[in-house]
């Protein structure tokens, strides 16, 4: 089977063009505003400007990118780049901004192509076809970039390039690309520890000689810091202001719509406990009121940014240690990918003010792991079901409801088909009956949202209940994935590296130990919770 990589890319671009008329979110205005700010103001005012609510809160490279884009924008529609033109959305503006996302996705395609090559997946293999389809037609990117409106595609392209350089053992280039990526969108700090540990171990400490190690560390630091200096250089006298925009801790523990993470479960537990114990509700804003601001839990202890930070790092440690303990480069590569997923997932689970979109940082690298190992593929399938499902609240307009379900179903069904196609004889790709039941249970939420609640007139009384159900249901699933996948990544023997994917045999004893560990881990998990 031929891969047709560029034809698949052309098809995916065509679908993205078709999606241009779909309704966009406020992020569209956010990016238009940034075009206007960078175009009409001197660089020193970029991070001070606050005419619009949507102030510039991405790192400088992204601002430079918008600045370059704004020249083309002013050519297309000069009104687009006027700061005071709030909520300006002429047809030309819509086409320009949407097309800029679609064109920038070329970087994404290059990243996908490069990473497939770096993983030594031959172009004509079914693996290559599956990975190309899953990445280029990624339904999460379609939702977030091409309907909701953001520029994640090309950022993930840079990430994939950085990953492929690392897999190709071009470490300095990889560090440089990753640092550049951070200067585009600092949320990729979530997965930085995996890069740091891998580069430290296999680049700096590769030779036993201490002097070489120091030289390597210096080289790595210089290469890694170059993009950072280039980015922040022009803002050297207003670093505090820039950082206060980049890390707004005033926004509260959870977003208006709770991302399906640990804190969603925490908040729900708090609500339930408060109801059960009849704690009178405080007059302040509550978590479900749909506002972005700080709130106090009614029953459980209050969480500070520091707590979330410590928890996140704590949960990253085991996989980082595991990665550090590898001795062979070729064997460590699959685990590096797993570490990227797990680090992102830890940050997603425990981070401060996490958005639901951040789960893409687990889901996209998992598309690569999907074609490497049957077990990874099963976990990727599981997380995809719930991860993309949890993005639905982003697309809430009535005209895209059916569309979002159809796209989601097509993607998940394709993934299921590929699971059976790539791993035809492996028992491990089958989900447990209870897991299957849980996946099918997803249907209940749309059923409630669109049929039961309007019929019972609950939609006026409890308008946020579907959102709460979505984040709770998916939050449980993501937590389950996090625990299971973490244990799988830790338990995997070094021999099962990605080069030996064909003779990777299911091992019943490991699954048993995984289950045993699963129990003990979840107990540990609970005791940790109590400790807080």
């Amino acid at each position, binding site marked *: 089977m031929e891969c047709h990589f560029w034809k698949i890319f052309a098809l995916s671009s065509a679908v993205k063009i078709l999606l241009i008329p779909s309704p966009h979110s406020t992020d569209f205005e956010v990016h238009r505003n940034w075009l206007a700010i960078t175009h009409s103001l001197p660089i020193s005012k970029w991070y001070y400007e606050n005419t619009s609510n949507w102030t510039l809160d991405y790192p400088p490279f992204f601002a430079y990118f918008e600045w370059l884009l704004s020249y083309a924008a002013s050519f297309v529609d000069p009104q687009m780049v006027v700061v005071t033109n709030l909520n300006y959305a002429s047809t030309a503006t819509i086409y320009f901004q949407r097309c800029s996302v679609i064109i920038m996705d070329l970087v994404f395609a290059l990243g996908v192509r490069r990473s497939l090559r770096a993983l030594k997946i031959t172009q004509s293999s079914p693996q290559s076809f599956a990975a190309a389809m899953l990445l280029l037609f990624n339904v999460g990117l379609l939702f977030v970039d091409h309907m909701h409106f953001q520029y994640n595609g090309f950022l993930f392209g840079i990430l994939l390039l950085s990953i492929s350089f690392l897999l190709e053992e071009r470490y300095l280039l990889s560090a440089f690309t990753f640092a550049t990526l951070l200067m585009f969108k600092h949320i990729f700090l979530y997965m930085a520890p995996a890069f740091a540990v891998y580069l430290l171990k296999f680049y700096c400490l590769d030779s036993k000689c201490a002097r070489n190690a120091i030289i390597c560390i210096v080289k790595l630091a210089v290469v890694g810091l170059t993009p950072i200096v280039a980015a922040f250089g022009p803002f050297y006298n207003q670093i505090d202001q820039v950082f206060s925009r980049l890390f707004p801790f005033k926004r509260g523990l959870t977003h208006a719509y709770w991302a399906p993470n640990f804190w969603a479960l925490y908040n729900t537990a708090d609500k339930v406990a408060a109801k059960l114990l009849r704690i009178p509700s405080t007059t302040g804003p509550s978590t479900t009121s749909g506002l972005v601001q700080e709130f106090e839990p009614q029953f459980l202890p209050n969480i500070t940014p520091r707590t979330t930070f410590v928890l996140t790092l704590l949960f990253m440690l085991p996989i980082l240690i595991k990665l550090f303990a590898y001795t062979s480069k070729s064997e460590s590569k699959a685990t590096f990918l797993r570490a990227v997923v797990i680090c992102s997932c830890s940050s997603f689970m425990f981070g401060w003010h996490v958005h639901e979109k951040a789960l893409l940082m687990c889901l996209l690298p998992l598309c690569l792991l999907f074609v490497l190992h049957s077990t990874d593929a099963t976990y990727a399938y599981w997380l995809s079901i719930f991860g993309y499902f949890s993005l639905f609240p982003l697309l809430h307009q009535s005209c895209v409801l059916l569309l979002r379900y159809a796209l989601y179903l097509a993607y998940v069904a*394709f993934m299921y088909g590929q699971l059976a196609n790539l791993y035809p004889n492996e028992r491990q790709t089958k989900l447990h009956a209870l897991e299957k039941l849980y996946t099918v249970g997803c249907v209940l939420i749309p059923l409630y949202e669109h049929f039961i609640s309007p019929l019972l007139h609950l939609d006026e009384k409890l308008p946020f209940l579907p959102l709460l159900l979505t984040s709770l249901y998916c939050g449980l699933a993501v937590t389950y994935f996090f625990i299971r996948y973490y244990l799988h990544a830790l338990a995997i023997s070094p021999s099962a590296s990605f080069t030996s994917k064909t003779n990777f045999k299911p091992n019943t004893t490991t699954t048993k130990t995984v289950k045993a560990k699963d129990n003990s881990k979840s107990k540990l998990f609970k005791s940790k919770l109590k400790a807080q």
Partner: protein
Amino acid sequence: MINANILAAISAAIAVRAIVSLNSYSGQGKPPMYGDYEAQRHWQEITTNLEPKYWYRNTSENDLLYWGLDYPPLTAYHSYLLGNVAGKYDESFVELTKSRGVESDAHKTFMRLSVLLADVVIYLPALLVLFTVIVNQQNKKSMFVYLIAMILYPGQILIDNGHFQYNNISLGFFLLAIAAICKEKHYVGSFVYTLALNYKQMELYHAFPIFIYLLRTCFDQKSFSQKLKKFLIIATIVVSTFVVLWLPWLGSLDSTLEVVGRLFPIGRGVFEDKVSNFWCVVNVVYKIKNKISNQQMAMLCLGVTAAFVLPINVHLFFNKRKETFLLSLVSTAMTFYLFSFQVHEKSILLVAAPALCLLNSYPLETLWFLEVTVFSMFPLFVKDGLEMPFFVLLFIYHICVKDIVLKEYNYRQFKNRVMTALFSTSVYSMFIIACVSLFAPAPARYPHIWSLLISVYSFVHFFLYFCFCIWQQFVNSFTKIKAA
């Protein structure tokens, strides 16, 4: 695994339709008459507010000049059903006379969803059934190809989900009927086809081959009593379905004729706008519209159509095979499109629907034809503001079906360099004509030059495919007989 892939393909097809639904519809924001969208909405208004006997009658409350109902009863019942749902949701959607020209996002969503519902409930399942029936007779390896080629056909998507119509219902019933008949389920087939006919009278384009095929199956029974029994059962099914559906208008001959008169208006002229059919092309060199009266024209059309339809169907009667059946369906429908009276450009969908069944016998020719059918409706899409979906869908279809899927299976036709080159040249020319017509204004002396060019260009292709189908039908049956 196959099932997961089919589910993925069907979901993707629904997604594409839902995306096209986001675009504008015919007559959006164009008072006072608007377009087909308003026609469908107006029928909901009429059917929910008036007694059935007034649906087709010109009264003070039902001005037939404003999108009067001119489709058969099943369409009216469907409108009645939708109108009731719409009224439950928001009474202003179907308020008598006051609701004319209602346009809002909520209403658009409602109307678009009603078309998508028909896609999900009737059209796509019909294609799926047809696909399993036809592919079962052929090699299984390549089966998935056809499903994609069938469900992504852009013509139906652009007309139903873009322009706004419910062809998916009548075509869905028709395709289901073909599937049933090919599966030897003649009673189901005749019932479902009657439904199709009662949804849109244009389904008459397919009546001859279906009638002949069913008649021949009656003749093929062993004894005379069995022949008669089979014929009587089919006749009873068809007649009783008609009677039940037409019940409100069967009270008197006048009321029945009133409905019939609405369905077949002779007064409208031989063609509207620019259609890629024979008369329209002849009209370029010889102005028949001015030289011949409407009555004479109708007779002329009837004569030419009959001259083609009769031999094709007589041949079908004596060569009853499934392949002949499918070919004759295409060529009969094509005869009506090319030579009959009062043809719309959208009627090409009635030729394209049975042509979908020929995809696995003649992939290259049929794919070529299908792409031209979409192109022939280009002026309509420009009018509706659907240029972008037109280009993108045709691009997706071309790449998906020709470049990826069909090449994968190394079809012998695709190894034929000359044919492939001709195909590509034709498709690229189509693309160029469409682009030029968009960006280069027509000269003042010939304001319709582009739509005429498109008509003539499509007509040439249609005529060639028409000849190809007839040739296949006649020549193949002779070679088969010789071989036997």
